[in-house]
């Protein structure tokens, strides 16, 4: 009888794996099928590097949006990653137990707040602050970067914390036994050891920042021109989809799915870069 149960469990896990993978493949194929024709028609080069986006005249160039996405995501990473990792170190190493019990649900709460609430909160506070102190319309790359940084914090913090806590106790004790102080232990032993978890966390966080739509629609200004400074309004690939998809049809809708393909490729590059780092160690 036991052998039957072994086979059964193996089968069930296999069926779950097979159906999940086929569903994931289905959505990938769907996006490609919906987006590829327009890229073929417009030509990959002038689709990706075309400067003019105006679907009503049949012009589909998304280069300004690529610049927008890259600049906003880099800004968000520059702000979010260091703060996120500091917090995960704080939670794993420094926080007194009582505070950790409070902090962790608070972080999960931060993850739960809907992105539109962030967008609206940003619109009411961050945008006027930038408008008054830095000039320009306030709707800018900076505003988007701040909002996205706040939104990616929970992902980066919670997953890096798990990988820090999962480290075997001997790592920390060994380092302390060698006379390193707490910070040196963290910096030279714990962080390198937990690097794969932290890199995974950063990638997931950046992935979420790249994929965020609703929050940034409200704070980026969504201008289709290439931004000249971080105070200029900008449109990212996701906001381009988010804004126009409701009204788009025919070729315009295909162009937005093609934007989805470009996003997918960017995220694939991000992940392979992350895998390269973790494997190189």
């Amino acid at each position: 009888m036991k052998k039957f149960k072994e086979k059964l469990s193996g089968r069930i896990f296999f069926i779950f794996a097979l159906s999940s993978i086929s569903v994931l493949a289905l959505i990938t194929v769907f996006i490609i099928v919906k987006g590829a024709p327009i890229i073929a028609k417009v030509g990959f080069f002038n689709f990706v590097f075309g400067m003019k986006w105006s679907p009503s005249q049949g012009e589909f160039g998304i280069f300004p949006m690529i610049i927008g996405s890259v600049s906003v995501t880099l800004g968000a990473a520059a702000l979010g990653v260091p703060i996120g990792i500091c917090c995960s170190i704080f939670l794993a190493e420094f926080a007194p137990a009582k505070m950790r019990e409070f902090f962790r649900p608070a972080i999960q709460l931060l993850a739960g707040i809907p992105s539109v609430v962030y967008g609206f909160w940003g619109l009411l506070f961050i945008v006027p602050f930038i408008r008054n102190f830095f000039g320009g319309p306030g709707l800018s790359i900076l505003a988007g970067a701040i909002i996205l940084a706040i939104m990616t914090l929970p992902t980066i913090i919670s997953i890096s914390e798990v990988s820090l806590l999962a480290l075997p106790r001997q790592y920390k004790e060994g380092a302390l036994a060698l006379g390193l102080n707490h910070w040196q232990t963290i910096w030279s032993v714990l962080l390198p050891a937990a690097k794969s978890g932290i890199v995974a966390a950063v990638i997931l966080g950046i992935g979420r920042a790249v994929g965020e739509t609703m929050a940034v629609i409200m704070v980026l200004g969504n201008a289709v021109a290439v931004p000249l400074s971080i105070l200029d309004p900008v449109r990212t690939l996701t906001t381009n989809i988010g804004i126009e998809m409701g009204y788009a049809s025919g070729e315009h809708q295909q162009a937005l799915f093609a934007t989805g393909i470009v996003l997918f490729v960017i995220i694939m590059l991000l992940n392979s870069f992350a895998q390269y780092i973790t494997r190189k160690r």
Partner: protein
Amino acid sequence: MKTNSRAGEKIAKLLIWSTALFVLVVLVAISAYILIKGLPRINWHFLTEIPRNMGRSGGVASTIVGTLLVTAVAIIIAMPFGIGTAFYLAEYTKESMITRIIRFSAESLAGIPSIVYGLFGFIFFVIYLNLGWSILSGGLTLAIMILPTIIRTSEEAILSVPKVYREVSFSLGGTKWQTIIKAVFPSAIRGITNGIILSVGRSVAETAAVIYTAGSALRMPVSLFSPTRTMAVHFYILAREGISLENAYGTAALLIILIFLINVVANMLVNRFIAKGR
């Protein structure tokens, strides 16, 4: 070298403590602002009546029910498939090209903008499968959206269980299934639940993927096939269309409270589950 390492230690400690407090302040600022503006709106009527007059008056009852149902459908479908896949990848397959490709594609799909999931759901579930705008379409779309995240976080948790636990369990005459259930799963449960709580949080907070699939109807849903408007979508329409800021803040405050409750209950379940498991 001695003195500056001690100074380095102090600076680092100060830096980390201040960053953590800064994040705490930011979190409190966001939720406090929403709660201060929203809590006065929440009373028995707000919770039990359905929205009227374009959302200017009446409560949000139908959106609360809508949110819970859509998220429940998503989690019930995504959890077994997600965790099952994670166990299959971590335990049943040798580290090969296929597993790396699957892990890689799961990670990439976790990054896909939810607006694209929304449109996939709209065209596949709503139109092709003729499920129409409904809790089921919304739930299925969300299930597919959170599936990669659950697979990734569960697998990360399973792989972080020390390999030696499996060897000990096998050496004590355990079968593969018993080793997974009795040795691997109890140690991985915290990581897995972490992933599920993140996914529940993300589904409750989702707007783009749900507006095109679950719809934005204000009536109380009667079955899995009736359309519904989730609280996040309700907030988005009220705030964006400038219909009623007060009700928008009320809905947002309620949403934050709901998410807080989900986290507290989930953590309690995990601790009890782990305590019993020990």
